[in-house]
């Protein structure tokens, strides 16, 4: 979703894929886009460009602190907590609806959820395992 704003239609598929592998936030793909178009300087400018707008949240948080104790504000936040969950479900849905995700993909998703739920296995290891399963199943 974030990538949509940064990448062109043609780059979009590739953006999603690299974004889903790479560490850190999704939108970081724009940094590699910056690197390809403007070298190290391009990458650095892209990094600046994506890290500054989110900092506006500090202004929002400051105004929020002033009205935090109002019952209506607290009510609004309880409403937004519900939206947060719905947004996550929409993201999960979008990922699972991608071409290339079939019934076996749903099994992999379930397995990854189960392994993550145990809290004993490193997330990175789960993803490596999933890659391995993908290789064995889909090659």
């Amino acid at each position: 979703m974030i990538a949509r704003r940064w990448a062109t239609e043609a780059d979009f598929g590739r953006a999603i894929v690299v974004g889903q592998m790479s560490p850190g936030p999704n939108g970081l793909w724009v940094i590699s886009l910056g690197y390809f178009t403007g070298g190290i300087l391009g990458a650095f400018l892209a990094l600046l460009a994506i890290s500054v707008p989110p900092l506006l949240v500090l202004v929002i948080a400051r105004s929020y602190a002033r009205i935090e104790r109002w019952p209506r504000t607290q009510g609004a936040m309880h409403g937004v907590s519900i939206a947060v969950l719905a947004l996550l479900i929409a993201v999960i849905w979008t990922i699972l609806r991608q071409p290339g995700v079939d019934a076996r993909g749903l099994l992999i998703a379930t397995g990854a959820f189960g392994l993550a739920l145990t809290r004993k296995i490193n997330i990175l290891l789960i993803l490596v395992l999933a890659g391995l399963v993908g290789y064995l199943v889909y090659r």
Partner: protein
Amino acid sequence: MSASRPAPGAWRLLGIWAGIGLQSFGGGTSTLLLIQRTFIERRGWLTMEEFTQLWSLCLLAPGMNLVAVTALIGKRLGGTRGIAVSVAGLLLPSATITCLLAALFVRAEHSAVVQAALRGVVPATAGIMILVAVNFARPLIRARVTIGRWYPWASAVLVPLFALALIAWNVSTIAIVVSAALLGTLFFAPRAPRPLAADIQKRGES
């Protein structure tokens, strides 16, 4: 319900965020889960309720929500310096790796091995995201005590409804967040707090 463990120093904070940035392959999904695990479950510097509140504020900010929530957590734990070390710690290592991966990917894009492996990794990120969602759902259920017994039920109706609006009717994210906030001001505002049993007792004694 506020988390009260002593906050970390700037270097420790930088190290923690860099660790999250380096480990969280799989796009933002695992980043979010690792943040929840590190700051809430392992260190106890935040409660899930506080984190949900910070994350909700981030939905109102432009750009990447994960950078915004990193800044807010950094601020809470280390002030202005906390913001700088947290955001830099998250972004610099992971941005470097992203660059390398993108460069490699252009070469390996059409390799059958890479494509098959990715078909495994992509649904796995969705599976991890489900756990993130479960973590976010917990405060909604616990809130029956503070807001009202019916709040979890209201959530159980509204969550699928909002999700459907996003998925099937292509309603924009911001429209969902704003209407959820409006609904909240109308229906989820807490009533005047009831005095706690301990307070009543104290008052009785004095």
